[in-house]
């Protein structure tokens, strides 16, 4: 036995000796190698203590980084700073400012948008950003025909007028068009991506793991499941202060909190509201709290669910039955505000005069009695997509019990819930919504247009021809004040007909080290950093 063991030991030792001559990734830098090629591990530093590096803890790894594919918010925050767009959101506002395009013109009928590009923008591989590149990038997105292409379904042609002028021709007038160009789908990808094409994938496999844009940063390292690193794109026109950005994947909120306290990370993104109070006591940490545009609401299935829900009085009764104030404090610990109208505060079109349902049990009961509804039983569909939905569903169940409506909770996997919502297999369902662009269209037209039944946005399966007509008018008019007036009219109708129960507009909360300077919160780009404005 011992003899056998010594043979094994001998083999292992020999193997070690034989392979020891293999390259050592952490050997001290030899004089021949350039400093950028290898890093020495001789000095260990706490990563966040480096003033040139920002360390952000994110709760989960990201998916494909391709701007033509991804619709994922966490992925967007990684790639936003690696690309540029024709236009950008201006600081903390929903206003649009020039990006790669220094100016633009729009035709009378709103169907032709011409962009005049600024000289000097260069992709991370040295290719200049010109009209041809812009066209190629958008053509690629449309051809890939994934989520981002859906946003540009009204684009019928992209034309290169001269090397620095590009024109978008739309099939119909779409006033929010400019706003969509400032979002992540508007990221301009270098045409050289086609050099990385395999099996006709238009470079999807390459861009899934790399960035190829003209933004101030580029992705230099992605340790799967562990971290992602952005470093300065030396070709970029904008020169940022921070030299590198490290996104660390830290799944556990308590661990994030400890790391923040110890100064190992600068920003902790994964801390839920119920742990926020423990952050408040930390000396080196500041808590960013801003109203977000993320709203949480209930879809009432007005046509495919329980037939009782087709009666507007019953829908109103449900709206009156919710104790909004207690809900916000129980579910979001007060870090939210009850909605007033479908357009949240922060987007033009939000109207303080629109009717807001208040908590009124007697009125709710009276409406139910008037509608002749007795022993009403409804299913409430929700999933594990949002951690707070469990508490919320229980609160709603108890609120509705007070007016004599029995609620059966139906919790399913997120993917299953998406399919059931699309098909309308529910009576009530919990949902969240955040706008893709800074325009009331992003709420009103998606939620209420009967052409959008199901996942496309009208998850209440609500149909009102008059509303459809008004929505169409609002969507094709270029005069903002006229549109605001139309949206006001629509809001009055839909609040009366109550296809949704509008719960609350959530706050955006972010614990951040006090050393971090220059953070700008833009509600349209929630969770996205303007890294070139930031420093430590």
């Amino acid at each position, binding site marked *: 036995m011992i003899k056998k063991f010594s043979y094994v030991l001998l083999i292992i030792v020999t193997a070690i000796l034989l392979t020891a001559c*293999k390259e050592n*990734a*952490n050997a001290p830098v030899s004089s021949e190698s350039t400093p950028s090629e290898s890093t020495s591990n001789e000095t260990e530093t706490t990563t966040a203590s480096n003033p040139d590096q920002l360390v952000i803890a994110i709760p*989960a790894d990201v998916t494909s980084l391709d701007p033509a594919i991804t619709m994922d918010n966490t992925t967007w925050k990684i790639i936003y700073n690696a690309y540029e767009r024709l236009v950008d959101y201006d600081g903390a506002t929903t206003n649009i400012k020039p990006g790669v395009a220094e100016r633009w013109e729009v035709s009378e009928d709103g169907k032709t948008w011409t962009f005049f590009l600024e000289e000097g923008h260069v992709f991370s591989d040295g290719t200049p950003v010109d009209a041809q590149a812009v066209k190629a990038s958008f053509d690629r997105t449309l051809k890939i*025909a994934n989520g981002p*292409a859906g946003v540009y379904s009204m684009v019928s042609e992209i034309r290169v007028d001269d090397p620095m002028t590009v024109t978008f021709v739309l099939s119909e007038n779409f006033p929010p068009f400019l706003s969509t160009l400032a979002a992540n789908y508007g990221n301009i990808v270098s045409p050289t991506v086609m050099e990385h094409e395999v099996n006709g994938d238009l470079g999807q496999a390459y861009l*899934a793991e790399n960035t190829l844009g003209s933004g101030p940063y580029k992705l230099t390292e992605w340790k799967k499941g562990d971290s992602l690193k952005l470093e300065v794109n030396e070709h970029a026109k904008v020169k940022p202060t921070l030299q590198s950005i490290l996104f660390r994947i*830290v799944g556990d909120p308590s*661990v994030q909190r400890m790391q923040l306290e110890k100064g190992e990370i600068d920003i902790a993104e994964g801390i839920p509201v119920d742990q926020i109070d423990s952050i408040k006591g930390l000396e080196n940490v500041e808590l960013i709290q801003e109203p977000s545009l993320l709203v949480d609401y209930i879809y009432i299935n007005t046509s495919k669910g329980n037939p009782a829900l087709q009666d507007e009085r019953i829908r109103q009764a449900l709206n009156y039955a919710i104790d909004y104030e207690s809900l916000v404090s129980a579910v979001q610990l007060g870090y939210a505000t009850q909605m007033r109208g479908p357009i949240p505060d922060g987007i033009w079109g939000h109207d303080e005069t629109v009717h807001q349902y208040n908590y009124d049990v007697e009125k709710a009961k009276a409406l139910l009695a008037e509608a002749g509804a007795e022993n009403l039983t409804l299913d409430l569909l929700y999933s594990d997509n949002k951690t707070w939905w469990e508490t919320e569903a229980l609160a709603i169940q108890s609120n509705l019990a007070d007016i004599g409506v029995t609620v059966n909770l139906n919790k399913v*996997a997120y993917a299953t819930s998406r399919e059931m919502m699309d098909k309308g297999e529910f009576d009530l369902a919990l949902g969240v919504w955040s706008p893709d662009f800074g325009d009331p269209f992003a709420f009103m037209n998606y939620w209420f247009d009967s052409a959008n039944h199901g996942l496309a946005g009208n998850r209440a399966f609500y149909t009102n021809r008059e509303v459809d007509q008004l929505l169409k008018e609002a969507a094709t008019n270029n005069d903002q004040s006229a549109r605001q007036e139309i949206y006001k009219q629509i809001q009055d109708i839909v609040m009366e007909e109550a296809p949704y129960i509008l719960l609350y507009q959530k706050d955006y909360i972010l614990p951040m080290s006090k050393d971090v300077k220059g953070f700008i919160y833009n509600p349209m780009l929630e969770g996205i950093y303007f890294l070139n404005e930031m420093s430590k």
Partner: protein
Amino acid sequence: MIKMIVKRLGLLIFVVFGVTLVTFFMSHVIPGDPASMIAGQRASEETLQSIRQQLGLDKPVWIQYFHYIGDLLTGDLGTSIRTQRPVLDELITFFPATLELAIAAFAIAIVLGIPLGVLAALKKNTFWDNLSRVFSISGVSIPVFFSGLIVILIFYGNLGWFPSNGRISLDINPPTHITGFYILDSIFTGDMVALKSSLEHIFLPALVLSYAQLAVITRQVRASMLEVMSQEYIRTAVANGIKGRLLIISYALKNALIPTVTVIGVAFGSLLGGAVVTETIFGWPGMGKFVVDSISYLDFPAMMGFTIIISIGYVLINLIVDIIYGLLNPQMKQ
């Protein structure tokens, strides 16, 4: 023995085939549409349709299955719907991390579990036996998400002895890829900086992950040691003047280990599958998190790839258990 190994490996093909069949159809029966997960918050029917077409989800399930098996035979596990990377690449990235963690946990469980079990058996119904009992029962009953956090709070939060997250310090380059196991690779390349960091990083998660299995092994060893110690051949040996270490290790433990090996084999399988929670708490970049995300995304190719790997793993572990059985028990050799 060789015949048995060959036969078992032959059976492996049928196991893998059966697993693909069951998993594929089960995962397609679950209501849910991967296209709707990719398309984003709001998705028009045209977008959904276009994505389904690209993924081949618009075809009947059995045709999809034949495509899958056809690709599988050429070694192609498909492309992950969620990450757009080949599933094989994903498994190569994540599997070694999980395996390394499971092996480390396994080593701790055996190295501590067997002596503890022997100790408990020899000191039956004494303070030591009770202590070992309390220790084991808490191992089985304390969930990992709790023990993990407590361990991090003490060793990272208060004492600062160990890191809280990841496989290796972020300032350190991982060792050159040979096996994908950081500890082995850094030994092979003589990279002591990486070795130190890898050991520091693996210690806490391995400890936490090993605890439940450690408890099971301890109890099993104790029980079979007690049984063996009461048998006649031991009494004869004692009567013949054999005592001390020789009696316990060569005479008693060797026989007591036979049932334990089975338990250990099963334990290793559950370590592999059960690393998910531990990986999340310790930010260990292994397969667990990847698989959970894939499941919630209905990422069929990734789920299939993972299931195939795990089932091959189980078959191999069972094979190894049987081989060790044979070595321990000459009767089994036939």
